[in-house]
Structure formats: C-alpha cells, structure tokens
C-alpha cells in the first residue's frame, strides 16, 4: 500500500515525509476503491490529519455517513448520484448544493476517469466493504451518530469562568477565585467550555477545593457586633518594664506602676475588626508631695496615643475611666503599653491599673453581610437560638441552599447527606459556623455542583430522550449566561414551560436582556472573534517596529472589540454584520491609529476612513492579534478568516517549510514572497485559499494602521481574486465577496451551536445546522433569533444514547 502511495503521490497538503498512518489492511471487496482513495485523497484525508474532519483511510467507514458540506451522504450504497464524494471528485458538488472546492483541489491533477470509474462502479455495486478489518494499531474513530440525531453532550464540568459566575450568583459575592487558580482550561473546537476537553484531575479537584474555601471565607463572614474586649493586668501575656511594684497586701490584679525609671506594663492584644473603639480602664493612684496627680499614658505599637489624669484614690476601690475620643484600630495584633506620663524625677507618684477594655467597632450594625444573610435563613450569631434548636436551623439553611447550588429540586436523603457533615463538625467540637461552612463546602465540592448533571432515565434505552425542565434550564443558563439559572428560569422549569417552544423562546429573549448575557461577549466572542488572542502573550508587537504601541492601546483595542461584539450579539443587528459592519469605537489613542478625530466621549461610535465595511476584521485589535511581532502575516490572517469565519481550518503546514519572511538584504514584497511558495503545488493546495484572503489586508500594518508601503518599503497592493467569487481591489471588497460564500453563513451557526452545546459537531449535525440557519435567517438573522433556534433544536433539547 505504501509503495502505491509513493508512486501515485499526486495530491498533498502535508507534503514532506511519507504519511505516518499505518495503512489499514483492506478487505478484498473494497481494495480497489481504497487504492483510488489512497492515491488521490488520503494524504490530506488521513486519519491523523483528517482535513475538513474527513478521513478516507478506511473507505468502508464513510458509507451511508452524512457529509459536513451537503445533505447527500458521503457515499450512498448503490447510488453514485447520491454520493457526495462522487460529486466532489467530478466537480459537480455545487450542482447538488454542496460547498467547498472540487477535489482534488485546484492545482492538482484530477482523478483520471479510469480511476473514478472504479470508485463509482464499486458504489453502484453496493459499496460493499464488509471484509475490511480495522487495523489494530488504529483506534477506531468515534461511532457516527445517525444523520439528524440529537447527539449527546458528555458530563460537563463547569469551567473556571462558569465556576466563578455561578458562585457569584449563588453566594451574592463577586468571585474571581476560580479564574485566579485554574491555570487554563482544556479547549476543543475553539472554546474552553467543551464538555470533552474540560477535564478533571487531581490538580483540578485541588483547585476546586481551594476556590470553594476562598469563596466561603468571603461569603460567610460573621456579622460584626459591638463587643467589649477586656484584659486583666495580671494576665500573663502582660509584663512590666522598669520598676514595678506589687503591694503584697493587695490582690493579684493590683499591679502598680511607680514612676522612677521609665516603667510600663503591657503586651500583645488581638483586635477582631478594623474600626473605632472606645477605651476604658480601671485605675487608682497616689499624688506626689506637691499634690500633682498621676497621668496614665497609653502607647499603641510603641507610639503615645492618649493620656488621662487619674485621681488619688485608695486602691481597694479603683475608679473606671473612659477616654473621650475613640481610637481607630486595624484588625490583628497590636502591642499595648500602659505607663506614667509624668516627670520621671518625681519619685512619689504611684499608679495602678486593674483592667482595661476596648469596645467596638463602634459602627458595627450587628447585621450580616448580604451574602451571609442570603445563606443563613436563621443565624445564631444574630438571633437567639438555643443549642438544641441549632440543628433545625442548620437543616433550614441547607434546605434553602442545596436546590440552588445543585440547580434542581433535591431529595430529603440528599439534604440528610449534607446535614451529616454539619453534625460531624459539631460533634467534634466545632461551632455552628464551622458546621454550616463544611456542609456548604461538601455541597459545592459534590459532582452535583461541579458538573452539569443530566441523568439518563433509562441507560438501556438506545433512543434519544428529552431533557427535563431543570436540565433545560441549566443548558440555557450555561449557554447564555455561563452561570446558574435564576429563580425565574427555575420557575419556568418547574411549571413545565421550558418544555414548550413558546416557553423556551420567551426565556431566551428575556435572558439576553439580562446583564449576565455579557458572558457571551466575554466567552463566545472573546474566543471566536480573537479578543483573547489580542490579550494573550503571543500578541506582542515589537517596540522598535511599532513605537506607538502601548499596553493602554492594547486595552483600547480590546474595548473596541468588546463594544463591537456587544453590538452584534446583544444589539438588534444581523449576524452578517460581523463581516461587513463599519462600527468603530475609539478613544484618543485609537483615533490617532485610525487617523481620525477623537470623539469627545471615549469609545463613542466614530466613523473611520480606511477601516470601513470590514466588520470585525477592520478593527485594529483583530489586525494586531493576527500579526507577528514585527510584521503582518497574510498567512495568519487568511488562516484565521478561513478557520473562524468559514469553518474551514487548513491543515498544519508540512514539515521542512520555510516560514521565515523578510530576512536577508533585499526582501521582496510579501505578495512576491508568498507567490514564490505557492509555486510549489504542495503549498499551493492550501495557500491558494489562505493567501488571497490574507493579502487583501496588506493595506494594514502589524497594529492595524493603514499604510501605503510595507515594512521593506515596497508599495502595498491589496488587490486580488477569490477563487470562484471574483476580483477585489481592497480588503473591504474582499470581505464583501466572502459574504457571498455560503460557508460563511453556515459557519456563524456552527460556531454558535458548538458554544451553545459545549460539544463539537459531526456529520450527523449537518441537517440540524442547516435547519437552524434557514429559520433564523427567515426571522431577521439576529443573534437572539439564532440563540432561539438553537435552543429549539432537538440537539439542544434532547440527549442521545452514549
């Protein structure tokens, strides 16, 4: 097989070294058509590169399997006319409503008729391949779902962002604790919410635990009440300096401080909260021969803070004094010292302190923070609850908390299982707060919180089943909010309206108006439209080449992308505006970059001159994120557009390619350098599609500024031709041509669908995605309508067998 491949190697996207795939042992029935595949198709469509998601290494595995480009199956046994691969091979794919190019792609020899005949004859004869064994060294591809089946979403762990948003909504705090701890989530199909890629290991569970500990610290902080904290001077934490007199006849508390040498008595005290405290003490004293009264000095952390005159009183009956002005203390340990403030030469003077106390913080209200009050439906720290009744209070708290945390109704047994943790803590000597804290920690560390759990009502049933209302509520809220359902959504789950079309549509439209829908801008657009790429460390414009680039400019670019995305996703705009809108939102720095006058309000909508009608790709942030540090990269830009706006991800470049551009003494223009590599047919197979898109943006430099000449002084020529779509003279025209490519519209739906469900798409999803596209375009083509149509699809509302 390998020798055949070597001699017949005409088609190649991955060039260079021989293909790495262990060639399958082909059964006799399909050996001949497999040889045709191996000769013309497999170098790109191998199991390991699987260009466009298609592997043809085992032709028997694609019989009666849906295509991702057409409603026709890839191969329909017995009917070449209904086999999309045949149309691709003959170039008639467009006639039957398919997309993409004829295969093999332009620049390569077509399959000779004698060989294509072998292929069609085999299909006509029934496409039998039943003797084709699976090679042991190749793991089987995932089983294909039947065409149009809803598919299934594997048990999905909340990613770090979802954990933070959910904890914020659940606990009424603002949590960044998970994002601060999780070191990057697994991604697949372009998003980090993919159920298969967001995995679970020891490190993840450690991180989840640390996150939960941290948020409970924040959420459960006990209510602050005004308390008096009293210290007796005989407490062994205090000690004296200088000359200290203990009168034998008096009780232990009677620590006198006689002024002769510098003498104080003091030690460390703990202050529970920041705030103002009043200061009291009980003291007695003895005046000197001239009748001067002793004066007490209070030193806090070594600095004199207050003085107060003490009367000449018998120490059998000390008097209580209070400072008129309160003292501000920060929470934590402070060193306090008490001493005489009088003239050190005065030998007669005596002063003694019995105790002192701080009372405060004086502004404490005695009420719990909203986050605690939300959880503590009863609170022994505030209410008078007997020890014997505290167990009931704990149960009340858990009964209220658990259905919210687990986002569904809970059973009595489940409440008991959480309450048992409270009881264990109390039995081991913990207080009420500790018991509740540990019970809540268990609830949050449980798989019912950390995963979006969708139960299989009958694991033996091989038919798809409808999700219940609560499961629908969770799918909707993690799609539109990246967070838990709110009360209204839970109510809609309970009353059954989430099982109806009208109910779903009403909730989607309501949820998109909620501030939580900003998560779509952060996560869907953030990943799909390159906003995170802009912020990532790989986007690193070189200071010497781009002296005007700064971190504030990067932030402004990001803000413009954010506002742009918000307009498309949450404004009443058609999705196609992503491609062609002229929206710009600029501050001073961005205005300079675009060469326009800055608006009086930063980031007000501002028309530009050179960056119009290019949609997302006219934004400086996008143009920067798709450039190399020192120069533009038409390849990166073209590849990005193909991958993200046409959903046609080119395969990685082959080995031994030269990607260094612009080195040497006299570099030619980017266009010439790229043309040079397209002269190589192996490169051309992919770069014929990539480069004409990317070169259209050559009128913009590595930070998105319009330019007339490139980095090497060559004049820029942004004109070109998109194969089958027509000629363009600049980027805006190129984008306009792209709009006519049916793959663009399809891709909008596919990307959103992948994000919405948290799973990749397969051939079985093609009819679903086509239906969604038709319905949302018929209803205005906005993101809101797209979200509604996705939510109404069987793929969203049902779960297939696993």
């Amino acid at each position, binding site marked *: 097989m390998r020798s055949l491949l070597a001699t017949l190697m005409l088609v190649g996207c991955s060039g260079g070294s021989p293909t790495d795939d262990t060639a399958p042992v082909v059964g006799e029935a399909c050996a001949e058509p497999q040889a045709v595949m191996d000769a013309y198709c497999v170098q790109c469509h191998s199991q390991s590169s699987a260009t466009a998601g298609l592997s043809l290494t085992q032709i028997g595995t694609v019989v009666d399997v849906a295509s991702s480009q057409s409603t026709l199956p890839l191969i329909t046994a017995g009917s070449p006319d209904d086999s999309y691969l045949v149309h691709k091979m003959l170039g008639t794919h467009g006639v039957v409503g398919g997309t993409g190019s004829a295969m093999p792609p332009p620049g390569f020899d077509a399959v000779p008729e004698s060989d294509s005949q072998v292929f069609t004859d085999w299909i006509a004869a029934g496409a039998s391949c039943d003797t084709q064994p699976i090679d042991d060294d190749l793991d089987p591809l995932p089983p294909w779902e039947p065409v149009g089946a809803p598919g299934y979403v594997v048990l999905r762990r909340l990613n770090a962002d979802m954990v933070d948003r959910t904890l914020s909504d659940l606990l009424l705090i603002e949590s960044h604790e998970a994002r601060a701890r999780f070191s990057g989530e697994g991604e697949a199909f372009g998003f980090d919410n993919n159920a298969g890629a967001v995995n679970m290991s020891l*490190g993840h569970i450690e991180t989840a635990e640390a996150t939960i500990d941290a948020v409970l610290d924040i959420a459960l902080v006990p209510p602050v009440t005004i308390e008096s904290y009293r210290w007796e001077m005989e407490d062994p934490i205090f000690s004296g300096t200088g000359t200290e007199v203990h009168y034998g006849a008096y009780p232990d508390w009677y620590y006198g401080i006689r002024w002769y040498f510098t003498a104080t008595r003091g030690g460390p005290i703990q202050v529970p909260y920041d705030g103002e405290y009043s200061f009291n003490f009980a003291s007695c004293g003895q005046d000197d021969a001239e009748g001067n009264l002793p004066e007490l000095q209070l030193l806090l952390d070594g600095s004199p803070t207050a003085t107060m005159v003490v009367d000449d009183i018998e120490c059998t009956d000390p008097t209580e004094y209070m400072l008129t002005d309160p003292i501000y203390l920060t929470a934590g340990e402070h060193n306090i010292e008490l001493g005489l403030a009088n003239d050190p030469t005065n030998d007669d003077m005596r002063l003694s302190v019995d105790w002192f106390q701080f009372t405060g913080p004086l502004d404490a209200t005695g009420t719990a923070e909203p986050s605690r009050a939300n959880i503590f439906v009863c609170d022994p720290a505030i209410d008078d609850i007997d020890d014997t009744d505290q167990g009931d209070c704990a149960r009340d708290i858990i009964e209220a908390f658990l259905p919210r945390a687990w986002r569904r109704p809970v059973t009595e047994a489940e409440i008991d299982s959480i309450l048992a943790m409270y009881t264990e803590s109390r039995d081991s000597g913990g207080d009420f707060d500790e018991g509740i804290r540990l019970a809540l920690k268990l609830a949050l560390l449980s798989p019912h919180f950390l995963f979006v759990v969708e139960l299989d009502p009958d694991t033996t049933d091989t038919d798809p089943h409808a999700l219940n209302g609560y499961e629908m509520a969770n799918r909707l809220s993690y799609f539109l909010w990246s967070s838990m359902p709110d009360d209204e959504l839970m109510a809609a789950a309970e009353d059954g309206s989430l099982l109806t079309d009208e109910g779903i549509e009403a909730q989607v439209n309501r949820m998109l108006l909620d501030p939580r829908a900003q998560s779509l801008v952060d996560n869907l657009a953030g990943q799909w439209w390159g906003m995170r790429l802009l912020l990532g460390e790989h986007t690193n414009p070189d200071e010497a080449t781009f002296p005007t680039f700064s971190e504030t400019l990067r932030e402004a670019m990001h803000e413009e992308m954010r506002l742009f995305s918000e307009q498309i996703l949450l404004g009443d705009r058609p999705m196609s505006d992503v491609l062609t809108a002229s929206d710009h939102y600029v501050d001073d720095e961005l205005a300079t970059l675009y060469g326009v006058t800055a608006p009086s309000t930063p980031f007000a909508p501002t028309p530009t001159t050179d960056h119009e009608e290019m949609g997302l790709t006219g934004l400086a942030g996008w143009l920067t994120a798709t450039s190399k540090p020192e120069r533009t990269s038409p390849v990166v830009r073209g590849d990005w557009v193909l991958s993200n706006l046409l959903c046609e991800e080119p395969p990685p470049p082959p080995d031994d390619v030269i990607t260094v551009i612009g080195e040497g003494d006299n570099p030619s223009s980017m266009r010439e350098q790229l043309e040079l590599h397209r002269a190589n047919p192996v490169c051309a197979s992919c770069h014929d599609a990539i480069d004409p898109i990317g070169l259209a943006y050559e009128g913009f430099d590595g930070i998105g500024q319009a330019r007339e000449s490139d980095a090497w002084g060559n004049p820029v020529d942004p004109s070109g031709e998109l194969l089958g779509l027509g000629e363009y003279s600049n980027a805006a025209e190129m984008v306009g041509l792209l709009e006519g490519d049916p793959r663009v519209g399809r891709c909008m739906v596919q990307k959103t669908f992948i994000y919405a469900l948290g799973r990749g798409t397969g051939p079985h999803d093609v009819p679903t995605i086509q239906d969604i596209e038709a319905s949302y375009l018929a209803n205005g083509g906005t993101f809101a309508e797209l979200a509604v149509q996705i939510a109404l699809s069987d793929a969203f509302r049902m779960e297939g067998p696993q």
Partner: protein
Amino acid sequence: MSRKLKRTFAATKPVASSRRTFLRSTVGGFLALPFLESLAPSTAHAAPGDKKRLLYWFLPNGFFMPAIIPGDTGTGYTLSPSLSPLAPHRDDLLVVSGLSNYGAIAGGEGHDPGTAAFLSCAATNPDFVQNDISVDQIAANTMVGVTPFASLEASMENGSGVGGCGGAVCGYGSNISWVNTTTPRARSATPTALFNRLFGSLNPSLTPEEQTRQRELRLSVLDRAVGHANELMGKLGSADKQKLDHYLTSVRELETQVDSLSTAVCEPGDPPAEDLDFEPRMQAFTDLIVLALQCDLTRVASFMLGNGATNRSYEHIGIPESHHGLSHHGHDPAIHEKLELIDAWNMQHVVGYVIDKLKTTMDDDGNPLFDSTTLYVGSELADGHYHDNFDMLALVAGNSSALNLGQHISTSAAAVADLHLACLESFGVVETSLGHSGTAPLAGVLK
C-alpha cells in the same frame, strides 16, 4: 487503551493504605482500577538517605542541532558551543543524541504530537483526545502515600499555542504530564499557585490537636463527595460514567495527599512575588520545586519553560522575534546565530540554574540533592525547522550512583522511550514498556 503495561518494581515494599475510606469504598469493576493501580506496591524509597528524585525540564521549540550536538562521543567528549555554558557540570552530564520519539512520529510529528509525547512517547490522535500515561506519572503512581504530593507540575505559560492548535484537539502542545490516555495533569502556571499548592493548607497558628481535627473534617468532606459520585454513577450514560470516574479518582488522590501531609514540614519561607519577569519567574518555580524535594513533599516534578511552539521572544538578550518563528530558520546563518544564543542562554540560565540549585541544596542525609536526583532535559523536536521527532537530543544529569555520567552517547535512532525507561529505573521503578516504542532501558545509561 489496548496497550498493556507490565509493571514490576526494582524492590517492593507494600505501602499500607492509611485511610479507612479506601478500604470501605464500594466502586464497580472498571471504576476501581485506576485507583487500585495507584495503590500498587511502591518501591522501598522511604528509608532516610535512600530517596531518589526524578525531574523533567521541557525546553520548547527544539534546538539548533549543529551547534548543540557534541562532535565526539564517549567519556572524552567535548561540550558543543550551545552546551558550553554547562562546562562546570560537564562530568555530571550525560548527553544523548540521535534519539527518536516514535510516538510523536506516529502521532503526526511536529510541536503538538511532540509535546504531548515528550514523556508519554505515545501517538496522539488529532480528532479526539488520546495520549497515554507519561513516564513522570508512572513514577508518581509509586509515590502515592509515600510523599504528600505524588508529583508536581509547573509551567511558565497558560493555555495553548498561537491561533488554536490546527485541529479539533487543543492542549497537546501545552501538556507533558498525562495521568491516563485522556487527562493531562493540571499545571501550576505561576509560582504563587505552586506555593499555595504546596503550603496553602498549613496554618501554623493552630494547635496540633486542632490541625488534626480540621484535617479529619477535610477528609470527611472529600469522603462524602466520593459517596455522592458513587451514588450518581448508576444513573449516567457510559461516557458520563468515564468522566465521573476521573472525578472519583481525583478526589481519592486528594484524600491520600491530605492524609499524608504532615503538620511538620520545613519552613516554606515567603511566598513568591507576583508578576515576576521571565527569568526570576523561572527561578522562583525552580526554587519551589527544589524546596519541595528537600522537604520531601514530593520526589517527582515536571517543568515547562513554555508551551510547545511558544512564540516567546528573548528580548532580554536582544532577540525580539518569536522563538517559534525563528526556529523555522530556513538555513539563514543570521537566524542560526540567534537560535544558538537562545539555546546557550537556556542551558546557562535554566538548566544551569536548576543544577546549581540541586548541588547546593542539601538532603537530610547531608548530601546534595543532586546526588539523588535524575534530571532529564529535552525538547519536543530536534531541529525546529524540520519539525522532526528524530535525531533528537536529551540531557540527563545527577543521581551519579545510578547513571553513567560524563559522556556523550550518540545513538542510531534509539527510542526516547528507552532513555525514559533508564531514567525511571534510576529512580527505582522498572518498566518494560512505555508508549509507542519503549521496551528496555537504553544501553549504557545505567551503571
């Protein structure tokens, strides 16, 4: 998945499962396996003075090969230009060249298959997540219950490479430590995160009794969460069950870790500063990993200087271009020079730093940690320009009682996996297979 790992150990000494939980846990057939595997009898490392350590240092983007492979072989070898900054350690180094990572080759070659196979030597699948357990995790599995952390994983970079990963599966290019066929180990991506992982649970202001009580309660929370998962298991589809099994395994591993975290660890020192620059950040990671070895918090660790194909620039030595971009040097001598500078800097400041640190940090038996530590250094590729996973170079250092140091072994396409098996054996664990191609320890490496 179909691969059968036959696992034997150099010396066996049963390690008792220290917690009731493990004995009374009721889990069904296939679920119990990963955990029981991790409880397998461990090697007799626990005796003082007999501890072995295993470190893996990953330097992305390959090397400029002409300047790094020594021209001569054997004990009389001369350090190559790029390795010359390691001159003080020449006699403590084992340079191995001509290696092939057959798993990476079978996985399609390049940065992503090479990075994922760096320690697993297995073929990755581009369509769905499929790798195999990595050699550090095979070692780590023998440390469960022996040290508080079976292993540490740290990386200078988050996330995956530029512009996605060229396929459906991302993450291959940013993970070298794999627990099983589908799950990479979560990495600490900042020194602060690593510090908190190591020392965050200590509260020295509590009495020993209170620390014990709180640890028991923490274990009870984890134990009860396992109970929830076990109950849930029967109500899920088959794919969900596998996912939940990862949760179960992870929580149990955490229980083991918490259980063995003694209250008496050595001084953690101050937490590392936030927002450190490249070099001090790398040093802070190294310091923490070496400290963890010294405190016997762990004996196995992996560290990534960057993700495979990283675009990091070496501006601090006057090279502003992306390292990945440069690595496709196109036979341009000016770029060769830059790559050589980067390689030499990495050798001096990254590899040299950890070796110095290991040589100057003493074990509790008074010997330098270096004497008991096998340090493996390598990259995901040979020459970045060719994206090749053959003719690769690796450095091994330390652990002089087990390793034949001070020489250059030039192999003829030996499997990296076999070098890994040798390093693993120097740590005390004998394996007869690894990934796609490992069969036996590479000849000449072990004493």
